[in-house]
């Protein structure tokens, strides 16, 4: 079976980048063998004799890594910008609690629920907000 013509596939649907995720500016040349997403040649990664997209490749490798004792970077990762952060930067793109940024996520100057009452009280005193909605 011949591959579908390029016009049919449209732009590449993979968003993976080296430093940040973004729309891929290249046209799709193939479909991911796992999720059927149209992808360009650069976002295709060889896996079991097929080409799969970066997202599927990472997920597959993660499953394999969980099953094995050691997590080793596959061949060619050094020259593949889309996989670099997964193997050579621990916790890339992770900002949840327990990571270095967890306290920064909570702005000390931000409003909290405790600020609600005094703010409402002040607004009522100054008659800034209309609270009696039935009146209008």
């Amino acid at each position: 079976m011949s591959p579908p013509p390029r016009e049919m596939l449209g732009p590449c649907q993979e968003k993976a980048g080296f430093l940040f995720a973004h729309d891929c500016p290249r046209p799709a040349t193939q479909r991911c063998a796992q999720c059927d997403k149209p992808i360009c040649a650069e976002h295709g990664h060889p896996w079991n004799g097929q080409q799969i997209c970066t997202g599927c490749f990472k997920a597959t490798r993660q499953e394999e890594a969980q099953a094995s004792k050691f997590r080793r970077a596959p061949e060619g990762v050094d020259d593949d910008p889309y996989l670099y952060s997964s193997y050579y930067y621990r916790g890339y793109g992770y900002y949840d609690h327990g990571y270095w940024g967890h306290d920064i996520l909570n702005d000390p100057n931000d409003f909290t629920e405790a600020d609600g009452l005094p703010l409402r009280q002040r607004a009522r005193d100054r008659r800034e907000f209309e609270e009696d909605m039935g009146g209008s």
Partner: protein
Amino acid sequence: MAVDVEQFRKERIYRAQAPCTQVSEELQHLGDLDRVHEKKELRTHSVGVLSMIGSLPVGFIGLAMSDEESGPSLLLWMGVLMFFGGLVSFLMSKRYKRLNLENRRYELASRVVGLLRADMAPEEPVTLELDLREDSHPDKYQNESRTPSGWKVRHYLDPWLSLQARLLDGTHLRLEMTERLQLRSRTKTNARGKTKYQNKRLSDAFLRVRLRVKPERYQHLGRIGSRAQGAVQVMTGTQLEDLTVEADRVDMTLYLGNPWSAGNEPRPNPETRSTGPTPLNGQRVVATALLSLYQILNLSRALDKKAVHSRAG
């Protein structure tokens, strides 16, 4: 536009302002040229050595065979010819040596361009200046000093790599690598009165990566400030020299104390003892620096998203 070979031979500085694919091709072409020069250098040097060594016995035999009546023998002429042939080969070898470039420099540049390509528009130009002259070139000489232990030190500063590019998110990237070189020499007289001449070469490097961003896209950068250091991951053998985070830019300088190579060095043979530390993987040093800076930028975006979600909630 291909590399202007004649211009490059004169200057030995590669300058380009072109899309990544073109720059990669040109660097590949430079690598091919370099390999040709390396082979020629080796060949002419070998021919020079063999001719010089061969010219001595041939010349002597030729001299012995010569007499006053018949004049210099053919062998003597051959010896003289071999001697001058050897000299010419040495001169040619020296010329090729001058054009024998430091592989790791153009290889690293090529690898970095290859990585950045993933986050750049296909037609977006990258501005690259690659100084491939030797690090002890007279233009790079700084000054001279003496150490307390008697070493005479000649200092060189070699800012050999400068790369600028605009990424797809509008960020302007500037990457620079500078090597520092010390050529040390001294003469030492030991207790038995024997005088020894010693020389050694010490070098280290600095990598500086600067990102100038759109403040409206990364609104919390100023707030992150000095705490950004927590996001920085550096490879063993490198040290964070400086990190500045301001509302519109992030700037990082790394110190590379160990020698470095462009990529992964092949594992040393366990039978042969290697001296000195394992070279750093230059590509990974640069990539980790870039990822560290984007970890900071992405945190600013994460804070934005959190603010949006909390407002919506």
